[in-house]
């Protein structure tokens, strides 16, 4: 017998209102006819029209997506290797430094990461002659570095849960390490790799601070474009952009949740069938 936790439920409702009222308000005001972003002036979709016909926004979105895809893919490869290292290779020279290097970017203030990367690129350009200009390449390099450690934490915790016995069995039967990696380890942790990629992708797509330090003139990503507009105040077309973002992300998350739920159900059903066949 337990009393209903009325206080807890009340705070929770307040918390969710706190989470979602600002977003909902922004979505409502994206249909505001007035040029003053915060005063209601009738229903209108003109901000969507002006947003979608803005070539700058399209170019910035394209650049952001290119950087996010490339950096997430590289970060997933490197982050997976680092995760396997931490979970499977218990002892090697420099392990302490390695685990420090994997944790530090997680808690390093973004300003410092951004400035230190920029200092590196400027000094490299001066003494090595590369990179000659800042843009896609430098931003991607910086994004790979700080998003790979997020992939590492996901892979590491998944590897620590995974059963080592199958890997060891394959090794005992004479499989070479690369075959074990590609035939057993990677397929087993594939869902973790996928969620690592998604996380790296969204981190890259969302980043303002590090991008603003490592990019050069003419290479504006979508967050940087929003940043430069928003610094001047509230503008209605950003409301429209925000609404579209929330709708796309919401639909994506709902779809992912549905697919995950379905595959879980199917796996459960398969497991039940398998047990029945064995009986």
């Amino acid at each position, binding site marked *: 017998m*337990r009393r209903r*936790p009325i206080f*807890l439920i009340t*705070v*929770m409702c*307040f*918390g969710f209102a706190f*989470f979602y009222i*600002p*977003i909902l*308000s*922004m979505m409502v*005001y994206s249909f505001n006819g007035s040029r*003053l*972003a*915060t005063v209601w002036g009738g229903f209108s979709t003109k901000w969507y029209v002006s947003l979608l016909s803005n070539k700058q926004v399209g170019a910035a979105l394209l650049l952001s997506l290119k950087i996010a895809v490339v950096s997430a893919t590289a970060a997933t490869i*490197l982050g997976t*290797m*680092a995760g396997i*290292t931490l979970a499977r290779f218990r002892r090697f020279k420099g392990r302490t430094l*390695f685990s420090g*290097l*994997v944790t*530090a*970017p997680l*808690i390093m*203030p*973004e*300003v*410092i*990461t951004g*400035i*230190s*990367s920029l*200092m*590196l690129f400027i*000094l490299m350009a*001066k003494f090595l002659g590369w990179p000659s200009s800042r843009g896609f390449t430098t931003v991607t390099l910086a994004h*790979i*570095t700080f998003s*790979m450690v997020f992939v*590492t934490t996901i892979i590491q915790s998944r590897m620590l849960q995974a059963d080592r016995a199958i890997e060891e069995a394959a090794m005992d039967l004479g499989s*070479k*390490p*690369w075959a074990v*990696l590609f035939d057993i380890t990677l397929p087993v942790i594939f869902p973790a790799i996928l969620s690592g990629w998604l996380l790296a992708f*969204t981190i890259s797509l*969302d980043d*303002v*601070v590090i991008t603003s330090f490592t990019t050069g003139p003419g290479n504006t990503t979508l967050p940087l474009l929003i*940043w430069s507009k*928003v*610094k001047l105040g*509230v503008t209605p077309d*950003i409301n429209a952009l*925000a609404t579209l*973002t929330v709708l796309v*992300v919401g639909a*994506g*998350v709902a779809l992912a949740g549905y697919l995950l739920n379905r595959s879980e159900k199917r796996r459960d059903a398969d497991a039940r069938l398998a047990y029945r066949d064995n009986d």
Partner: protein
Amino acid sequence: MRNRIATWLQGRGYRGVIIGLPYIWLLLFFFIPFLLVLAISFGTRTPTAPPFGYGGEHPWISFVGYSRLFHDDLYIRAFLVSLSNAATATVLCLLLGYPMSLALTRVSSSWRNILLMLVILPFWTSFLLRVYAWMGLMGKNSWFNALLTDAYNLLTPAAWHLNNIPMMHSNFAVVLVMVYTYLPFMILPLYANLERLDPVLDEAAMDLGSRPFRVFLDVTLPQSVPGIIAGAMLVFIPAAGELVIPTLVGDASSPMIGRVIADEFSSASDWPMAASVAIALLLLMVGPMMLYTHYQSKAEAGDEP
């Protein structure tokens, strides 16, 4: 030659590649840049490009940046403002996040999944746009400001009448938006911790006649200390170094430390000073970071007997 590489790869090379590639990458793009910042913090500002140097009329290693940290009011104030804003936001996140996490462990499991997804969903939308959403709400002409102003005028004497509440460009705005954007960082580790607690202990205390609030104080709260500390550090550390929020909604006349670093670097083009402030910020964060790494694993493991 190719054969030898192939044999090496199949033998010892496997470990070499798996360990080596991420290691080299992090050394090159994270560790060396960090060492650069450390080295530049002991340099002096020069009108060359890049704008720092060693030696010359100054001694080889200069502590100019560090001594200015203690003598110039601007830096001390910026550190104090940052720490107090971050600490206030952390406490508010805890006060709001703890009951929410506890409530999440008490609702039915189908509701719980939906509500957890609603906590995480803002994570996947743009951070910048979440800050921006509050700029709209706090502005002078917004419905939210009007609502608060009406409530204020109703509750206070007529002589204190206000046309609107000046919320933007203040530490209040910074803390509010920090709580808004960092609250999920508090809820998720706390929830993970609280979910693993054994409800039998609660019930035992209840059966022995404790009242619910007593049970909370004596049983639940002590067991959730690892979750509280992990969540608090997860909010405090990024909040103290925050750049976006204070730039957009903060008071420009008393900047936070992240803003000071960025300004020294970009506008003043004083690399040694920016580097000194950055190193000082990192040193201040070492304590919270160690607390976090210590308690994070505990929070995830739950309180095992």
